[in-house]
């Protein structure tokens, strides 16, 4: 990943805005921000992040690559879409946040112990394995994401909650051993691999010809 990172630094030579435009989901919108701040003001996690969308966009324009890619802000997106519907410039802010988070991981610069990063990673792995999310396995892995001891504590703390869910048949312990899966897992995996391959190639080889 860091090799990838060095290559990008070399390729864009300080023009981080262009780098974002070329490689981040919906990144070409960043320059259209008019800095009104409605997005940051509308974010439910506003009190918690280091940088909100407005500031991140300005930082991108100011070339603050390391700070942007190491920021907690994008990881605090709950995907509530409040920023999107309120943005007077109609920027797809939610997607840019997801895109920045993904790109930060790709560049090896995302915050290491960010809980949402871990959850997001687990979620993706979970769905990628079987094509459908296995909530129990996702939950169990989640308890252990901070390490074994923490995991036991969390699992104990959540026990009443889990029992309630089991009692109401909304969490099936049997699922841990089997559960739901896509039947055509082979095709499913090949499809995802291909998509990943196309996307990685695009990033490694630079933007698509003709794409601005």
């Amino acid at each position, binding site marked *: 990943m860091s090799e990838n990172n060095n290559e990008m630094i070399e390729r864009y030579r300080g023009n981080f*805005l262009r780098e974002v435009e070329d490689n981040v989901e919906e990144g070409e919108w960043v*320059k*259209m921000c*008019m800095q009104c701040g409605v997005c940051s003001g509308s974010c439910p996690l506003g009190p918690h992040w280091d940088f909100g969308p407005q500031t991140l966009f*300005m*930082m991108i*324009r*100011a070339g*603050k690559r390391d700070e942007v890619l190491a920021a907690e802000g994008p990881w605090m997106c709950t995907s509530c879409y409040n920023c999107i519907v309120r943005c007077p*410039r109609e920027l797809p802010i939610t997607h840019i946040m997801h895109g920045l988070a993904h790109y930060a991981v790709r560049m090896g610069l995302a915050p290491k112990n960010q809980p949402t990063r871990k959850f997001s990673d687990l979620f993706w792995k979970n769905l990628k394995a079987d094509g459908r999310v296995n909530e129990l396995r996702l939950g169990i892995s989640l308890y252990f994401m901070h390490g074994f001891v923490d995991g036991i504590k969390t699992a104990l703390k959540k026990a009443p909650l889990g029992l309630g869910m089991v009692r109401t048949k909304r969490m099936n312990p049997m699922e841990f051993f089997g559960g739901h899966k896509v039947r055509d897992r082979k095709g499913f995996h090949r499809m995802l691999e291909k998509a990943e391959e196309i996307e990685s190639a695009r990033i490694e080889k630079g933007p698509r010809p003709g794409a601005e």
Partner: protein
Amino acid sequence: MAKERKIGAYICRGCGIGQALDADRLEEVAAREGRANLVRQHDFLCAPEGVETIRADLASGEVSDVVVCACSGRAMTSTFRFDGVAVARANLREGVVWSRARKGESSALADAGSSDSSERGEIPAKTGETTGEAEVSSSERETMQEMADDHIRMACTEIRFMTPPSPSLEQTLNRTILVVGGGISGMTAALESARAGYSVTIVEKSATLGGFAARLWKRIPDRSPCEAPVDPGIATLVSEVSVHERITVETSSKISRTSGSPGKFKVTIERCDPASGDDGSTGSRTETFGAIIQATGFTPFDPSHIPELGYAASGDVVTSSELEALALAAKGEALVRPSDAKPIKSVLFVQCAGQRSSKPGHLSYCSGYCCAASIKQAMYFQDADPSIETVVLYSDMRTPGSGGEDFYRSGQSRGIVFTKGETSAISAAGEGGGARVRYRDLILDEEVERDFDLVVLATGMVANAGVDSEANDTKTDEPDTNASAPAAIEIPVESILNLTYRQGPDLPHLAHGFADSHFICFPYETRRTGIYAAGPVRRPMDIAQAREDATGSAMKAIQAIENAGRGRAAHPRSGDLSFPKVRYDGCTQCKRCTVECPFGAIDEDEKRYPLFNESRCRRCGTCMGACPVRVISFENYSIDTVGQQIKSVEIPDETENKPRILVLACENDAWPALDMAARLRRSWSVFARVIPIRCLGSVNTIWVTDALNAGYDGVMLMGCKSGENYQCHFVKGSEMAQYRMTKIDDTLEQLGLEKERVITHEVAITDIERAPRLINEMERTIARIGPSPLKF
């Protein structure tokens, strides 16, 4: 006046008047006290039969002057207008019946009102809450009837002191327009006027037409899609102007003298050849014009006296107008650094340079066009080479106009970087050339210092409005606390129009050196009738706005010409034929009228008597209010038409506990506000007697002292807002009244009266709830301080 006058009073019983009031008693008041020769009652006076009754009486000669005792004088104006006949209105509907509708009154009253309103499209009354309530008490009915009786007395008195205004013999029709300034505003105004059939002469100081716009490489787009700079279009405009058969162009020319008034401005145009020495005059001629449009534009702000902008420190710091000159010279080729002709790789545009700041030497206002101008100029660089870094450092991006936002977005999508920040210092970057800029990034909250190949200062507009004749009267904005600070920007002031008016050689300014015009109601109307300001001389604006402004001013100039030809007033009393008449044998030459006229309409003759210029007059009556010896009057509005109304009101004995409050309400704002309040059935004190006046400026203090001497318990003046954000339709009228009223305290003291008995309020047309409340407050004040001791 030689003709015998026969007054006919017509009492309408419609709209609830007949139910609420004793019409027979009103008839008796009109006949006995109002001395009307004929009194008639009618169920629905504004209906064709009602109006026909009046016409028949006029035709038979039984009646010569008409008193309509019905609705407010603001309602049914055309219905009750009879050519050449004086008409007075007794306001029984809004002034008495509708403004008395309280809980406890019969529903018939309100119902009648609502059925009327449904026919006329007026606001219907709330009727629900009055249904089934007890009848109005007999004492309430009596005070309301007394109020109505007084309105009849007032109107019958007014008519006896009125004559129908007739056109004077002064009128001249001159369908030529002088346009001063040959820039985009002037040329647009000239073309619009010429296309409407009027002859135009353009006087332009410089040797060529085009003005500021001719020095632009491109201009801000104002037509969809508003994505890229467009050709200024000056060449086309110049050729259209040059070939138009009704347009004469005088370049290298100035105005050395302007006298006269709308319809007959005498203007001396002086040709000056700048090459032939200091004075340069190469002859002059005098011509007569019907109206004048002043489109003298602006001068770009000179930032050289503001050290932090670095204009003097580096050759690579230029103003936006200088950058245009460079771009124009380059004709689309890549621009180079002014200091060393090296290629430019980075440009910073500093917005609000020397503007929007209260710092000494800065312009305090926003010039409105600079944000879009910087976007346009950044595109010059982007279009030549997208790798050039273009940064706009702004505090607020303001891109007015329909396409402004699109143009801003277009700039963003092309890669212009917009940074919100505040510049603290610009200096030379050192040996390598360029400029070093220190600024605070307001989003990232950090200090930044970096070098740019070129820095462009987005400087503002300084109006070319000539001499501010009132500069000595009004205080300057800058407080005189910082003596060491550089003085306020010195604008080289040379008169543009050289008016021979007593009040000064140019259009009066309002603030910041722009020509004063009524921003809300009549933007093109300056304070010199028949002279219209168009373009950035009036307020900062871009080309699109200037063209619209120029078109508007052309329409106004044409209107002024046609009005002058018919002896009619311009806004706001448009069409009014009345005109100040002076009894010169009583004049003491005190000059108050000549000084106070908001429109500079009054000069002095060789014997130093006031010389009224009819077509310059707006008929506000400020001169009448100013005159200490009361020798100025209008045929239909005079010291007597109002003063005698005041005296006609019956003042009850102090033991009756029925105070009288005189309300002098401005006809432009306060009176309509009260009318609307009445339509919404808001009530005000039954003891108030409201008399509409043209403007607070027309209030002569004799009215106030007469009222107090007659035993009124209180006097209220209701006029428009004054000051820099004035709302007064006559600009200075309410200010003058306020000033005069500061002196009324002495009078009150002499009469042994409390100060609270006279009060002045600023009332806006929207003060529908507040205006009645103010009157009610006055009633409470009177209750507190007791009846006037001057009753007898």
